[in-house]
């Protein structure tokens, strides 16, 4: 069985994230890491493998991104993935979700016939939550998304999730694209043994040429959307802060709410 986990290298959310002059996300100047939300995907892939002790299961982590993005794959290998693929090509910079999903789909096809393509619920930078659905469309697979609980037996998968209007149980058959939320269970930390073992695991780099993707199909100039402007939100003007003493806080808050016509 083949599980491919899509992991993204993202700027650290607690750092000062910013844009470049061409309005693309600054991915070089800000410290990056494996998106926390994709750690959950790696974890679920590893759990699926561990539950299938009597089967041969290969977990391959794949990322598309700049040179440093290989760190995201390394982390997945340290956690326990078997192999890694880094799609790295100058031309990819500035790609939108449509192009990212194209390159990911080609990379997945090159890795081999997947049974499960595992994704996070969203990337922590762009956060569109659309790449899994786009991948499913491109690969012609069903998508079972936003899983809080994942169970599988043979080629059947069942998940539980909190939908907008209902709690749902969704069922589907492999091959499929599966995405998991941060409710799906804590991701493991790499052990010392895992970190050492990761150094010997296969890690391949693909260029666009390896995938048969033309440079003009991806990147900023091929994007199907164009950013016109990015603007930092004006800082909020400092508000009034009062210390509560014997009920004074409540009185002051009520006055504030009344002055703003909320009561």
């Amino acid at each position, binding site marked *: 069985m083949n599980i491919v986990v899509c992991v993204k290298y993202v700027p650290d*959310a*607690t750092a000062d*994230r910013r*844009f470049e002059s061409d309005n693309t996300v600054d991915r070089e100047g800000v410290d990056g890491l494996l998106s926390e939300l994709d750690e959950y995907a790696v974890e679920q892939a590893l759990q699926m493998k561990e539950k299938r002790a009597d089967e041969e299961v290969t977990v391959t982590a794949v990322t598309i991104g700049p040179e440093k993005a290989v760190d995201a794959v390394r982390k997945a290998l340290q956690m326990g993935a078997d192999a890694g693929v880094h799609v790295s090509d100058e031309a990819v910079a500035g790609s*939108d*979700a449509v192009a990212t999903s194209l390159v990911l789909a080609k990379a997945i096809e090159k890795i081999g016939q997947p049974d499960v393509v595992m994704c996070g619920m969203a990337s922590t930078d762009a*956060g*569109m*939550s*659309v790449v*899994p*659905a786009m991948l*499913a*469309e491109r690969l*012609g697979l*069903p*998508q*079972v*998304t936003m899983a*809080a609980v994942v169970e599988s037996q043979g080629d059947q998968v*069942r998940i539980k999730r*909190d*939908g*907008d*209007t*209902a*709690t*749902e*149980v*969704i*069922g*589907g*058959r492999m091959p499929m694209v599966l995405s998991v939320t941060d409710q799906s269970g804590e991701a493991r930390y790499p052990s010392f043994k895992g970190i050492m073992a990761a150094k010997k695991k296969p890690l391949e780099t693909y260029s666009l040429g390896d995938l048969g993707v033309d440079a003009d199909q991806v990147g900023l100039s091929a*994007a*199907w*959307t164009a*950013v*016109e402007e*990015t*603007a*930092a*939100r004006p800082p*909020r003007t400092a*508000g*009034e*802060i*009062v*210390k*509560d003493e014997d*009920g004074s*806080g*409540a*009185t002051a*808050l*009520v006055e*504030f*709410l009344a002055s*703003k016509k*909320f*009561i």
Partner: protein
Amino acid sequence: MSEVLVLVDHVDGAVRKPSYELLAIAKRLGEPAAVFIGGADKAAAAAESLKGYGADKVYVVDDAEVKGYLVAPKAEVLQQIAEKASPAAILIPSSAEGKEIAARLAIKLESGLITDAVDVDANGVTTQSVFAGNFTVTAKVTKGTPIITVKPNAASPEEGAGAGAVQEFAATVSDAAKGAQIVAAQPRQSTGRPELTEAAIVVSGGRGTGGDFDSVEGLADALGAAVGASRAAVDSGWKPHTFQVGQTGKVVSPQLYIANGISGAIQHRAGMQTSKTIVAVNKDEEAPIFELVDFGVVGDLHTVLPAVTAEVEKRKG
């Protein structure tokens, strides 16, 4: 003028407010044409309400082949309508499901996609709020039929009758699209309070509640507000995940957000930072949430909130 398709979000035929907001935006771009995918018996009533909010046309698609499956069939239906109607744009509510439908549709129609718009102007230029609300981005689709998912509260619904011409549309759904099935669904119990993402006021509680949400809920009810929670409160099992505000929960942008016993981590901010007015009650004056507030009280929420609630009730009379 070209049609602008609006995918209608409804629960068993009852149209949800964001669909009316989308119709108001559609009017800026062309002729609003609602797409109602639902039970045949619910269609007439739904079409009537959509007409009341400006729909010039209502495509009615019987959901017999759609119901019970995830996303893919709806994307096929929209593709088929779009190929017939050649719309100027397609607007979809920015829910998790809406974004996935839009994603598949973008690939099918080879069209650009913009998600989570908080505004769309008459030229199709969208406004989005990114990086936990720290940046505002304006953008435009440059290829194909613009597909835009729009967040709740991006526009005010506009009452006023459209032509409301009902057109039954017979869509065909492929077997391939039926790969993911809804095996069971437990509809959410109504809390009797406003929907979190649509509410004008949200009162939320975090770890600082210690698990006792009574005073948070008391204030919410006095103000007619929705109740929210931080992830710490959800992870502790005090509230279901559907209450969570933040990066991996709901993103809200109400007129008033009151954070109680919430420290203000970046992931929580991502879900509430664009609220018009922000208030916090926290006993630690160093809590980062105070950097955001218009008004803050340094104090114990268990004494401050009940006192506020009592005074609000008194003033309401």
